[in-house]
C-alpha cells in the first residue's frame, strides 16, 4: 500500500517536473546563448496563461491548440524586446540586462493587469481522468506531460539536426569562435531570444493545463524562483539540463509536500516554497555551474 | 636575499600542462624579462606569481614568505604589483582616483590617509606625464594614456615587484624608449624589481632588462643575461623553427 502510494507520488512528481522543466528551457537557452539572465521569466509564463484563458473563453480554443499560438506570440514578444532593448545591453555590464529583463517583466504584468484586471481567473476544461493504477491523473495533466516531452524532443532535433540550431549551439560554446567560423551571431542572438521567450510563453499554456485556476497578472513570481532553481540544477546554459532539472525538482517538490503534510503544526505549501529557496542557495554554493551536466 | 622564488611550479588545466616545473629566482631591484610565444606559459606564470592561479605543485616564495595559496588581494599589500596587457581602468572614476586606489591598498595602504593617497597619486600622475588628464574619467583616455595610467596606478602601490604584462605592445618606438628609461629610473630609485612579459625579444626588453628567461611550452628554456640569451642557439631555434645555420 505504501509502495503504491509512493509510486503514485513519484509519478505525479515526474509529470509535474516535466512541465516545470519545459518551462525552464527557454531561460537556459537565453542564458546559454546571450549570457543574459531573464529575471522577468515568470511574467512570460503568466502571458502564456492568459493566452490560454483568452483563447479558451473568447475563441473557444482548447488549450492544446493554444500551445502553438502562445509560442508564436512569445516569439513576437521576444523579437520586440530583443531589438528594442536587449540587443543594446549585451555588451553592457551584467547589472543592466538583469534590471532590464526585470523591468520588462513588470511592464508585462502591468499591461496584462490593464487589459484583464487583477482578479484571479480560471477556466474549466472538462476532461476525463485516467487511472494509472497507482494514481489518477486528469487527462489535461497527461496532455501537459506529453506536450512537454514532445517540445523537448523537438528542441533536441532543432539543436542537433538543423543548421540554425547548430549555429546556436556553437555560440553557446564559444561566441567568438562561432563568429570567426562565419556564424551570424547577431541573427543567432535575436532568434535564440525569441525562441526562448516563445518556449516560456508556451509553457504557460502547459502549466495552466496543470493548474487551470489562480490565473492573475502577478502569478509569475512564484514560477521565476522555481525556474531558477531548476535552471541552476541543470546548469544555467543547458536547455536539456533544465528539462532534467525540472524532473528532479518536480519529484522533490511533490515529495516534500507530502512529507511536510505529515508534520503537525506547519503549513506544507508554504514550507515547500521555502524549500525551493533553500535548494537554490545550496546549489549555488556547491556547484553554480549545475549539478547535472547535460549538454 | 631573493625577492621572489618559484620552486618547481606546475599548473595544469585538464590535460594541458601550462607551466611545467618552472623554477625561477628574482632578486631585489633586478629587471628580468620573461619571453616566449603565445602558449609558452607566460601568462599562466604571471598569474601564478600574482595569485590569480594557485599552482598544482611547487611553491611561490615572496620575501621569505610562502605565498603559494594566498589570494591576489593579499599579495598586493606584500608588494606584488601588476599591470595588464589590455589596461583595466576603473572607468567611471577619475585618473587621480584610479591611481589613488593603488596607493590605498598597496604596501603602504595601512599608513596613508585618503588625502595622502591622492597626493601620492598626483606624484605618479606627474611622473607619467598625465597631469592634464588627472580629473578626467579614466574611461575617456586613449589606449596609450590608459597604459600610462595602469603603470602609475601600479607604482602608487609602492610595490617591491612589478609584473608588467606586455606593457609596451603597440607603442611607438620613440615612446617605448622613453618608457623604458622611465621604468629603469623608477626601478633604480625605488628599488622595484621588474618582471616584464613580452612575446618577442624586442627593443623594449633589451633596453630594460638585464636578464631574460625564455619559456617554451611551459618549461624554462633559457635563463641568462640578455645578450647571451639572444645568441643562444636554442632560443634561435624556438623562434626560427630550425637550428641556426652553421
Amino acid at each position, binding site marked *: 500500500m505504501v509502495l503504491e502510494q509512493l509510486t503514485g507520488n513519484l509519478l505525479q512528481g515526474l509529470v509535474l517536473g516535466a512541465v516545470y522543466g519545459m518551462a525552464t528551457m527557454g531561460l537556459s537557452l537565453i542564458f546559454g546563448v546571450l549570457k543574459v*539572465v531573464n*529575471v522577468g521569466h515568470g511574467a512570460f509564463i503568466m502571458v502564456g496563461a492568459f493566452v490560454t484563458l483568452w483563447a479558451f473563453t473568447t475563441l473557444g480554443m482548447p488549450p492544446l491548440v493554444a500551445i502553438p499560438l502562445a509560442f508564436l506570440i512569445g516569439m513576437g514578444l521576444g523579437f520586440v524586446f530583443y531589438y528594442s*532593448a536587449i540587443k543594446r*545591453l549585451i555588451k553592457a*555590464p*551584467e*547589472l*543592466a540586462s*538583469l*534590471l*532590464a529583463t*526585470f*523591468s*520588462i517583466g*513588470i*511592464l508585462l*504584468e*502591468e499591461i496584462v*493587469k490593464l487589459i484583464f484586471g487583477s482578479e484571479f481567473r480560471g477556466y474549466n476544461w472538462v476532461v476525463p481522468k485516467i487511472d494509472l493504477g497507482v494514481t489518477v491523473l486528469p487527462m489535461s495533466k497527461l496532455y501537459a506531460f506529453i506536450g512537454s516531452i514532445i517540445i523537448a524532443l523537438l528542441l533536441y532535433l532543432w539543436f542537433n539536426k538543423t543548421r540554425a540550431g547548430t549555429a546556436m549551439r556553437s555560440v553557446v560554446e564559444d561566441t567568438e569562435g562561432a563568429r570567426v567560423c562565419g556564424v551570424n551571431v547577431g541573427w543567432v542572438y535575436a532568434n535564440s531570444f525569441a525562441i526562448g521567450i516563445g518556449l516560456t510563453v508556451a509553457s504557460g499554456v502547459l502549466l495552466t493545463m496543470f493548474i487551470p485556476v489562480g490565473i492573475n497578472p502577478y502569478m509569475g513570481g512564484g514560477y*521565476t*524562483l522555481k525556474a*531558477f532553481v531548476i535552471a*541552476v540544477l541543470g546548469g544555467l546554459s543547458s536547455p536539456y539540463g533544465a528539462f532534467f532539472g525540472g524532473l528532479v525538482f518536480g519529484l522533490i517538490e511533490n515529495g516534500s509536500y507530502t512529507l511536510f503534510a505529515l508534520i503537525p*503544526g*506547519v*503549513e506544507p*505549501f*508554504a*514550507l515547500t*516554497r*521555502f524549500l*525551493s*529557496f533553500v535548494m*537554490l*542557495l545550496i546549489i*549555488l*554554493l556547491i556547484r*553554480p555551474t549545475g549539478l547535472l551536466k547535460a549538454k | 636575499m631573493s625577492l621572489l622564488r618559484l620552486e618547481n611550479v606546475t599548473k595544469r588545466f585538464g590535460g594541458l600542462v601550462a607551466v611545467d616545473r618552472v623554477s625561477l629566482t628574482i632578486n631585489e631591484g633586478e629587471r628580468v624579462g620573461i619571453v616566449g610565444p603565445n602558449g609558452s606559459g607566460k601568462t599562466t606564470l604571471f598569474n601564478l606569481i*600574482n*595569485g590569480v592561479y594557485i599552482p598544482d605543485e611547487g611553491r611561490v616564495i615572496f620575501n621569505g614568505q610562502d605565498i603559494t595559496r594566498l*589570494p*591576489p*588581494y*593579499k599579495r*598586493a*599589500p606584500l608588494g606584488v604589483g601588476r599591470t*595588464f596587457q589590455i589596461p*583595466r*581602468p*576603473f*572607468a*567611471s*572614476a577619475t585618473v587621480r*582616483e584610479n591611481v589613488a*586606489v*593603488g596607493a*590605498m*591598498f*598597496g604596501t603602504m595602504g595601512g599608513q596613508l590617509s*585618503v588625502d595622502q593617497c591622492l597626493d601620492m597619486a598626483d606624484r605618479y600622475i606627474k611622473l607619467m606625464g598625465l597631469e592634464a588628464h588627472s580629473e578626467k574619467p579614466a574611461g575617456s583616455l586613449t589606449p596609450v594614456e590608459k597604459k600610462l595610467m595602469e603603470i602609475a596606478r601600479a607604482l602608487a602601490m609602492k610595490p617591491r615587484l612589478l609584473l608588467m604584462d606586455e606593457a609596451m605592445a603597440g607603442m611607438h618606438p620613440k615612446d617605448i624608449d622613453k618608457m623604458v628609461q622611465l621604468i629603469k629610473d623608477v626601478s633604480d630609485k625605488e628599488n622595484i624589481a621588474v618582471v616584464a612579459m613580452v612575446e618577442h625579444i624586442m627593443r623594449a626588453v633589451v633596453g630594460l632588462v638585464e636578464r631574460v628567461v625564455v619559456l617554451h611550452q611551459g618549461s624554462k628554456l633559457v635563463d641568462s643575461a640578455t645578450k647571451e640569451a639572444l645568441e643562444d642557439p636554442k632560443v634561435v631555434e624556438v623562434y626560427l623553427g630550425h637550428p641556426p645555420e652553421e
Partner: protein
Amino acid sequence: MRKQSAKYSPFIPVLTIYVLIFLIGKGVSGMWQVMAMLTFYCALGQAFNIFLGMTGYVDFGYVAFMGVGTYGMALTITHLAERGITGPAVIVLGMLLALLFPTLLSMAVGAVALRLRGAYFAIATIGVNEGFRYLIEGAKIWNGSEGIIFMSELNRVLGREAASSLSTFWSDVFLFVIATLAALVTLYFMRTRIGYALTALREDEDAAKVMGINVTKYKIMAFITSACFAGLVGAASWALKTPYVFPPEVFEIHYTIEAIIIVLLGGAGTLLGPVIGGLIYGLSKYYLSIFLPGFQLLIFAPIIIIIIVAFPEGIMGMVKEKAKGSSLARFIV
C-alpha cells in the same frame, strides 16, 4: 580643516532638501502626509543605493530587510508590553532590533550569496523575500501567516495619545532622521577607502582584487549597511504607523521594484540621485493616484527600460557631467 569641510559639502544640498520638505510639511496644511511619503521614498532610495549604486550588484530580495525590521519593532513592542515595560525606551529598543534583525539576515544571506558573482548573486537573491516570507508562514514563526497585531500593546506602552501622535507625526520625523543618516553614511563611504574600494569592485572586480582590495569584505559592508537602513525604514514607516505586521504585505516585492526605479531614475551611485529619484517618483505616484490610480508602475517600467538602455547614469549622473568644472561641482556628488 578646510579640506575636511569641503569634503562633506555635498551633504549640504541633501540636507537642504530634507529641511525644505520638513518645513513644507509642517507649514502648509494638509501637506504633511505627502511630504512624509516623499521622505519615505528618498530614504528607501538612499538605503538601496548604498548597495546597488555603490557595488553594482542588485538584490532582488531587498524588501526582506524592511520586513524583518518591521518584525523587530513589532516583536519588541509586543513582548515588552506583555512584561509591563512601557515608555519611549521601548521604541528605542525596537529600533535597535530593527537594526539587529536585518544585520543577521544580511549576514546569513551575504555569507552565501556574496561569494557569487554578479548574475549568480542576483539569482540567489530572487527568492530571499519569498523564501523568508514562506519560512515564517510555513513554520508558523512569529504567528505565521496571521501576523502580529499590536495596537493594544502599543497603546499600553505609550499611552493612547502618544501612540496616536507617533503614528501620525513622530514616525515620519524618524523617517527624516533616517534619510539624513543614510545620506551621511553614503557620503562617508564615498570619501573614505570604502567608497574607493566599492567603485573599484563595481567597475572591474578582478582588477580590484589584483590591486589589493578584499572585495568580499567591502561587498558585505555595503550589503549590511544597506540592509540596516532598510530595516529602519520598515520599522518607522510600517510598524510605527500601522500597528500590525502581515507577512504578504511586508515581503511584497513591489517595494524592491520602487527602490530600483528610484535609484536608477535619480542616478545610481550618486549621493543626490536617490533623493531626486525619490522626489520624482513620489510626486508622480501621488499625482497619478488622483487621476490614474495604480498606473505608476505601468508608466515607470518603460521609463526604466529606456533609462537602462539610453541613460544608465540617471538624472544626477547626467547633471554631474554637465556640472564638471563649474563652481557647483563640489556640491553635486
